[in-house]
């Protein structure tokens, strides 16, 4: 009896299991067929490319084309091309992007992409482009740009030379879309930050040195040790979770001591020799000051323990009086403060240096930086349409679409001037996330070759929205009040100007891409581990022990081979100077 009924069940189960295994294998087969198909079409494309060139010139191919896209930088507001700007983009080019953004460590994702062999059609790999070049995953774009991308050529002009890979391999693997052309910065997003209420209380004194910065915070904290709910106010909190360490802890050491931002190095502007910047004696004094801040209780004790989200949550409570960070790094928290109406607890930017003999270097001009850019993979089904898509983005029409949105909807032209209507501006200020999601304004900034802030188009309007008159519209009343107290209209007015510095010949050293297997990279990782351990130790130590820890730190670096690394890096910088100066 039982045997009889059991049998069909057993058979059914076996069958199901077998089928599931077969299904798994079947899936695999399909995939491999697909990729084979792709490489086939790609080969066909490259042979046809020349032949179809004129044909496509005559009748632009706008048939729907979906391209996969991977970006190292996250875009939390990405709306799968359903937003208004993207819709127009698809209309004009026929291209839809299937985008993926890095979650977690983007370097690892690029490493996986390089190893996996299934490349997205368009990749923006920033500093990790070397991994893709090594794997043969990206194509040389020199010819494509020359033939199909008049706008990119026009915008970049001579700067196209700065897109070349190395002296040995002068191919263009990435179109530089991070660096802006003819840029004149208006936005100061760095420096040291202070809440407006702190300065108001102190009567808006001059904030130029770390001492000034310390004094106002100290004075405020003495008067208001806690917030209205009895929670302790915090003097300064640092953001030291993983790579934020660079932004909030180690880079300011360079900026406050007159060095320009070259990543982990300080580069001699004459000889282009690189030294690991922590080895400069000036910086020791900066960290001594942080140590002192910790000693007198102005530095948040949790600075080196908290995770990024905890830091943001803390800032969003409005209890943190001062930050040393970049606006994009703490912006989420500041938006929360704005939404809650706590405008006097949002932050202004001040050009703080170690002592008054130094100049704050946020606006040290780099020239056109080249470097980070967008690449087309070898498996891209249609490189020509792709480059045309990128070229459309680089056109005036494309740039204005991305930066301003759609005419009549997100901006209007009044007396020949582009103006953002009041109700739209209101949404930008107070409902930013939803607005960005809906409109998609700004999504393509790092996909397109673009003019920078301060550049004007043929109609005499700025390409970007970041110009003084427009910037002021985004300021809150409290912010304006603070600025007025310092006789400034924008934060940038407080900082030393570009003209006070000599342009760097190599752009910025932090965007020189090193091959991963290179000894300099490996040593760099080791130095980073030592630094990230020792710097917090030194800051949190008792002041009497600071010198000893610092000496140990320097000894550790020497032992790990810092000199060798510096020599290796110097070579890279000098190579770039050579590559860029040869036109």
């Amino acid at each position, binding site marked *: 009896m039982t045997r009889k009924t059991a049998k069909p069940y057993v058979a059914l189960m076996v069958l199901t299991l077998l089928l599931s295994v077969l299904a798994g294998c079947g899936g695999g087969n399909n995939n491999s067929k697909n990729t084979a198909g792709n490489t086939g079409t790609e080969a066909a494309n490259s042979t046809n490319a020349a032949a179809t060139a004129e044909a496509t010139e005559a009748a632009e191919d706008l048939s729907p084309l979906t391209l996969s896209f991977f970006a190292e930088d996250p875009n939390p507001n990405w709306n799968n091309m359903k937003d208004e700007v993207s819709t127009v983009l698809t209309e004009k080019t026929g291209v839809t992007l299937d985008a993926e953004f890095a979650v977690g460590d983007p370097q690892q994702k690029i490493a996986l992409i390089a190893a996996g062999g299934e490349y997205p059609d368009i990749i923006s790999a920033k500093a990790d482009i070397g991994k893709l070049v*090594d794997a043969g995953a990206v194509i040389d774009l020199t010819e494509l740009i020359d033939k199909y991308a008049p706008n990119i050529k026009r915008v970049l002009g001579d700067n196209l030379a700065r897109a070349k890979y190395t002296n040995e391999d002068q191919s263009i693997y990435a179109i530089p879309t991070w660096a802006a052309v003819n840029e004149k910065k208006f936005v100061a997003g760095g420096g040291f930050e202070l809440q407006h209420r702190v300065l108001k209380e102190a009567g808006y004194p001059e904030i130029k040195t770390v001492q000034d910065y310390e004094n106002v915070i100290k004075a405020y904290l003495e008067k208001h040790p806690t917030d209205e709910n009895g929670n302790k106010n915090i003097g300064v909190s640092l953001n030291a979770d993983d790579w934020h360490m660079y932004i909030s802890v180690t880079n300011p050491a360079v900026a406050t001591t007159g060095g320009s931002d070259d990543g982990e190095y300080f580069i001699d502007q004459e000889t282009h020799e690189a030294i690991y910047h922590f080895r400069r004696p000036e910086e020791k004094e900066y960290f001594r000051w942080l140590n002192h801040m910790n000693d007198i209780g102005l530095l948040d004790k949790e600075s080196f323990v908290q995770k990024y989200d905890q830091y943001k949550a803390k800032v969003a409570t409005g209890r943190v009086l001062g930050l040393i960070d970049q606006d994009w790094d703490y912006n989420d928290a500041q938006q929360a403060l704005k939404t809650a109406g706590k405008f006097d607890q949002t932050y202004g930017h001040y050009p703080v240096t170690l002592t008054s003999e130094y100049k704050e270097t946020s606006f040290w001009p780099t020239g056109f930086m080249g470097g980070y850019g967008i690449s087309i993979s070898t498996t891209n089904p249609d490189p020509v349409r792709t480059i045309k898509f990128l070229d459309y983005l680089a056109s005036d029409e494309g740039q204005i679409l991305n930066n301003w949105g759609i005419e009549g909807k997100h901006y209007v032209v009044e007396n020949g001037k582009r103006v953002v209507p009041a109700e739209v501006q209101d949404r930008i200020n107070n409902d930013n996330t939803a607005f960005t999601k809906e409109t998609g304004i700004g999504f393509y900034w790092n996909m397109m070759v673009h003019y920078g802030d301060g550049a004007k188009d043929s109609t005499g309007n700025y390409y970007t929205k970041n110009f003084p008159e427009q910037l002021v519209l985004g300021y809150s009343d409290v912010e304006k009040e603070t600025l007025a107290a310092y006789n400034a209209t924008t934060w940038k007015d407080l900082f030393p100007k570009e003209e006070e510095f000599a342009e760097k010949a190599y752009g910025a050293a932090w965007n020189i891409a090193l091959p991963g297997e290179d000894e300099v990279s490996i040593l760099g990782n080791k130095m980073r581990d030592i630094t990230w351990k020792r710097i917090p130790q030194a800051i949190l130590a008792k002041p009497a022990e600071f010198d000893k820890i610092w000496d140990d730190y320097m000894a550790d670096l020497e032992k790990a081979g810092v000199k060798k690394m510096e020599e290796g890096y110097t070579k890279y910088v000098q190579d770039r100077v050579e590559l860029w100066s040869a036109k």
Partner: protein
Amino acid sequence: MKAITPAMKPELKKPASRFWAKFRQQKYLYMMAVPFVLWAFVFSYLPLWGWMMAFQKYKPGKSFFEQKWVGLQYFRELFQDEQFFNALRNTLAMSLMGLLAGFIIPILFAILLNEVRLQVLKRFVQTVSYLPHFVSWVVAAGIITKMLSTDNGAVNDLLLSLHIISEPVQFMAKGNLFWGIVTASDVWKETGWNTIIYLAAISGIGPELYEAARVDGASRLQQVRNITLPGIRATIVILLIISIGHLISIGFEKQFLLGNNLVRDYSQTLDLYALNYGLGMGRFSFGTAINIFNSVVSVILLFTANGIFKKITKESII
């Protein structure tokens, strides 16, 4: 084994036909096993091919035959790196601590729970104790850091109000506490869950044994020692040997999420090291070398543990 061999001798005469007869008889069982054998082959044996990478200067995108062979270069690099030994120390220390705590505490907890007379209370405690198992490490790490925080952290507040300490302790910034914090959080998260299997083993012990012991006047402690513990001995040994096999591959989630730069000397495990210095930098070969080292050590540990238990208990799982 020895006892059965003589009985099997006559059957050995025609091994092939015997085998096929048995096979036909058990064909459904074999068919049911096929998917799992395939699964094990595809996911556990095929990837071993990738070990070749450790002996080559592997560049992605090139075929196997185009790679450059470098012999043991990456192993040499590995054994010359101080950080590697540091990572190895941390891995072994944390996994040993985890092994001891994660082994002893669930057994004690299971026995204690088993002795609870009030069924409602027992169920309640058990459910509450295994709930944290379903919380992911990301969330758990957030809870732990918040609890140990100096800024309104519950632990510091408690210690302060009891006047045990005079100012908040930076728990997360002290390297020498890190191993303990990881072990303790692991115990908090997994004890309840690991208890289930022991409770199941205990419930398999016949009640008549306990009844007989009670008639003989055994106290509850004596019952535990002479009935419950021997009753679940097999389960204990198997679980212990299995967890020794996992000793070196403790992963990196906990350490990655709870660690910070101040405690790096205590928090970097082998897996984290492989991630930071191997995969993260695109050094696939180096990463593979670390992984091979991992596997070899795991196998040695497993066989040693099994050997020791075989000697002591005359039981083996391999």
